[in-house]
């Protein structure tokens, strides 16, 4: 099966086991590059799919936490090449499907064809590119799909219905439903009309829907879990790692 189908399969398996799928996000190589694989393994054990953040100098869709992690990782020499090398060296120790989250420019600089080849070899199943709208995505999508890799589309509460349909149709792996109109790491909580929005996205999508942005606690996971297949936890997890706390324990606590 194409690599991107492993993502949907992992999410569906969690749902069939009676739980909301957990998609933890970490910034690769943060807080310590030397502990990257160890952290990744701990997070992969507790999650169903792992979203792996590639640091970038201009993370325009991210709040303070992810910005901080991104800038620090860059300062410590983390790059896409380094991340692939680490994943290759880790071998087959990580069974959880990986999805890379990267702004477009590091992927452009790497070259799409080389990117797809190395990603597939490293156990990566898909990509999330927050500054690549559907209209500009043809070239990257084609390169990824020729290797069975998926390009995950984001949808937001501001997305009009006809566009929502197009994006759900185009997405591979899962549909990333942004819960709020804003950047990552917001502290304002989940919006009141979240259920209707997630139900609408789920109704349009043939693949699993995972909700992200602003998910920090078990109550948040429970709230989105009734209307989506999975919950993405980013800034809150990065803050746990910054405090050198156990990521597995934190992620376990989110399932109540």
């Amino acid at each position, binding site marked *: 099966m194409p690599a991107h189908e492993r993502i949907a399969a992992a999410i569906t398996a969690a749902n069939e086991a009676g739980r909301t799928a957990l998609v933890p996000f970490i910034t690769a190589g943060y807080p310590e590059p030397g502990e990257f694989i160890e952290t990744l393994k701990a997070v992969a054990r507790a999650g169903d799919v792992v979203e792996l953040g590639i640091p970038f100098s201009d993370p325009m*869709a991210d709040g303070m936490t992810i910005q901080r992690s991104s800038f620090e990782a860059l300062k410590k020499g983390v790059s896409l090449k380094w991340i692939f090398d680490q994943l290759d060296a880790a071998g087959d120790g990580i069974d959880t499907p990986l999805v890379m989250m990267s702004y477009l*420019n590091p992927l452009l600089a*790497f070259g799409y064809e080389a990117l797809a080849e190395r990603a597939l070899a490293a156990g990566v199943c898909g990509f999330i590119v927050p500054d690549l*709208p559907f209209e500009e995505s043809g070239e990257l999508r084609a390169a990824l799909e020729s290797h069975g890799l998926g390009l995950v589309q*984001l949808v*937001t509460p501001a*997305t009009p219905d006809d566009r929502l349909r197009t994006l759900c149709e185009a997405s591979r792996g899962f549909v990333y439903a942004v819960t709020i*109109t804003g950047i990552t790491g917001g502290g304002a909580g989940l919006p009141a009309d979240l259920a209707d929005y997630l139900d609408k996205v789920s109704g349009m999508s043939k693949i699993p829907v995972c909700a992200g942005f602003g998910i920090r606690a078990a109550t948040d996971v429970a709230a989105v879990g009734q209307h989506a297949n999975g919950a993405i936890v980013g800034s809150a997890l990065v803050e746990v790692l910054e405090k050198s706390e156990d990521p597995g324990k934190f992620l376990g606590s989110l399932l109540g």
Partner: protein
Amino acid sequence: MSAVLQGDEAGKLLDAAIRRELPDERGRFGPFGGRYVPETLVPAFERLEDGVKEHLHEAAFQEEYRRELREWVGRPTALTYAPRLSKTWGADVWLKREDLAHTGAHKINNAIGQAILAKRLGAKRIIAETGAGQHGVASAAACARVGLPCTVYMGAVDIERQAPNVDRMHRLGAEVVAVESGDKTLRAAIDEALRAWVADPHGIYYLLGSAVGPHPYPYLVRELQSVIGEESRQQMLEQAGALPDVAFACVGGGSNAIGLFYPLLGDDIELIGVEAGGTGTGLGQNAATLATGTPGVLQGSYTIILQDDDGQVQETHSISAGLDYSGVGPEHAMLQATGRVKYISAEDDEALEALEELCAAEGILTALETSHAFAAAKKYAQQHPGAKILIGNSGRGDKDMPTLTKYPARIRSHAGA
């Protein structure tokens, strides 16, 4: 950079530019431009694009815009002959005086145009970014003029080196937000403004100050700044009796340069953009994007940027905050690739020296940004005796006093005959 365009692509692209057919429907200037934005902003950009199409070239908008340029901005700005500079340089030097526009720089042409547009599009409030502070001041003034609240994002480093402009923004009623993330200069300010817009895509109008960013901004800003080149062309014919042989403008994001150059693209005039050469040619020592950069996506546009091999955008250095930017407008990337405009750089010291020379020779304290264009023009004059030179004097230098006081004046005010 020549590798970007193959064979006769460059010629075709330049023809399209001169015929005023660029950008295309997808916001592209050949390979450059486009719209790389977070999904949350896609509907906002579509509304903006529709709004630009509906209003920008309509009579009602144009009437209000032209009236404001005339009665509030003080246009047309003068074209000034520079007799003492001409004599010293052995050339015929003319200055397009954007420093005489309201608030002291060309930035106001764009700010008032977009503020009028924002009002027509029903915006509740306006946000803007600023580097040197000139666009922040222009935005604050324009927002006051149309009656909309204004928030300006400004890098903490720039707040320090452009203190007089921060105070002006406050007095004009704007809120100034210090940006502490990233490089704490213009690039970080744009990132932060985009983040604010993501949080309220319906209520906010983002008044971008340069010909950079996602479509339609490079187009919109060029259209609003083209008044510089249109006036210059007419004034040269009237006052100098001929078009210039060459025109110079400084280039950071490139709004004053595109405003001067665009109406002159079809003329037999050499066009030269001058970037910030900083303190040297090493990565991080300058902001000479077109001279040393490579293609990539920065802040929503595929253009030439300063980046490392991993695609990480590099920090820049320039003595002038307004040129201190790692990217450049996509239309400039195209004009360089086609060979129509030549892009060179001037270093910090050369700019400082040019600023002093202009002060002493013509009684004009020009901006540090603009000084780069003078430094390059002087070198050109030495190689082309008698040339008729037009320089875009994009802004005045009062705002640079905190920087200038760190450098002792080398030329006394009565130097020369």
